[in-house]
């Protein structure tokens, strides 16, 4: 058998670094990985330039793990590069999978973002109205910086993706599982979600579940929680029923409602819409006034239900004029 090492690249688009840390969080395993693989490109951990990627032959890489969302033309450019140069391209983490936290920017617009950061900010010196431009003439030459797109995209919106590893970040155990699966060549059909279960989180969650009837919503700190009972039944928001399992139930086990970072369960396209329907259905009232009162306990429902998935939701982004 060919003893050739696995050629691996890891890259971050519009990201926070957490997914890269998740790989490092596999502890000793990452050292084994360094033994078994050549990490050809990993901006956060090893030196490398885009030119190195450009120089590779198509398919020269065995595996590219792309984390972070696609916010600008640089992210898209590298996504396309990695797609060409790698046999397998994996959308790694919530942002690449669904748009993630950066995806929340889709509920506003490019103009408002730039204005907030560069114009209306109290730390900007008075009179300074400098806003970054994609192309600027300076010192006799032209400076080009990546174009800031008017919305955030998931990785699969811009390139063909082979596999999706959900999570913000993916649980270290799952990262291990995914990498081992690649190393062993034991991968399911293309386009599958890896490193996660098929069913919703409730399947993994050890809390007891019974009648679901909600009379009031509470912030987690507002009530003394029963650690054995379903959080939703206690009026504490938990996106678990509409979220894919596989993370080890870390959040409900820490008495926090699931935030949905593993995306919707298998077969569901729009996580927020499914959760909306489920949650509203178990609100315990038939009176319009009372329903309004109960739902007023959800001040930012869209932000909660679509926290990680705005760009891949049905409406994808704001449609304000």
């Amino acid at each position: 058998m060919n003893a050739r090492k696995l050629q691996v690249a890891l890259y971050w688009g519009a990201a926070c670094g957490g997914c890269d840390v998740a790989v490092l969080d596999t502890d000793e395993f990452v050292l084994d990985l360094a033994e078994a693989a050549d990490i050809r490109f990993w901006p956060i951990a090893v030196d490398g330039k885009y030119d190195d990627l450009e120089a590779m032959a198509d398919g020269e890489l065995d595996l590219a793990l792309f984390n972070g969302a696609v916010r600008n033309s640089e992210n898209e450019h590298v996504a396309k590069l990695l797609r060409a140069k790698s046999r397998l391209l994996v959308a790694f983490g919530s942002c690449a999978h669904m748009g993630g936290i950066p995806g929340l920017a889709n509920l506003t617009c490019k103009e408002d973002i730039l204005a907030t950061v560069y114009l209306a900010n109290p730390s900007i010196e008075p009179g300074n109205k400098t806003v970054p431009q994609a192309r600027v003439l300076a010192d006799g030459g032209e400076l080009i910086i990546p174009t800031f797109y008017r919305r955030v995209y998931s990785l699969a919106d811009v390139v063909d993706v082979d596999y999706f590893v959900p999570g913000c970040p993916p649980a270290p155990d799952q990262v291990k599982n995914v990498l081992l699966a690649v190393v062993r060549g034991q991968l399911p059909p293309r386009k599958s979600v890896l490193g996660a279960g098929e069913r919703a989180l409730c399947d993994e969650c050890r809390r007891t579940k019974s009648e679901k009837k909600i009379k009031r919503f509470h912030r987690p700190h507002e009530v003394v929680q029963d650690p054995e009972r379903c959080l939703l039944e206690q009026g504490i928001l938990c996106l678990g029923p509409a979220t894919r399992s596989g993370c080890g139930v870390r959040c409900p086990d820490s008495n926090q409602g699931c935030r949905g970072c593993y995306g919707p369960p298998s077969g569901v396209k729009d996580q927020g819409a499914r959760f909306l329907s489920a949650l509203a259905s178990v609100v315990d009232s038939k009176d319009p006034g009372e329903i309004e009162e109960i739902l007023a306990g959800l001040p930012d429902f869209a932000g909660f239900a679509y926290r990680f998935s705005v760009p891949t939701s049905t409406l994808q982004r704001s449609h304000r004029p």
Partner: protein
Amino acid sequence: MSYEPKLVAFLCNWCSYAGADLAGTSRIQYPPNVRVVRVMCSARVEPAFVLEALARGADGVLLCGCHPGDCHYSEGNYKAMRRFPLLKQVLQAYGVEGERVRLEWVSASEGQRFADIVADMTVRLRALGPSRVKSTLQADLVER
């Protein structure tokens, strides 16, 4: 060609669809912009259907069910009643005008009421202008 709103309506079999049929047997006229999808109960209507309709080009979506207390399946319309305010919240977050989606109770005997609701909604949708959802999503595809 001037804009003619596309209105998709989800009507429940026992009350609102029957009411719409009654408008027909009574020959009550209303604008042809509405196209009906029949479900057994308003409880079957998923918020996802409304979002999909908007994403596929609907300018407005009308949901009709039995009056509270009269649901053929006892409590189905209450589920619709509870889902609707949250759906409006989501639409607001996504910058879609709340007036594009409407929930109304229409009984099997309210043919005139159905026609009036459709006529009113059509007028309002005309004033609002076409929904930007589908065109914006298509433009996004071209952007990069």
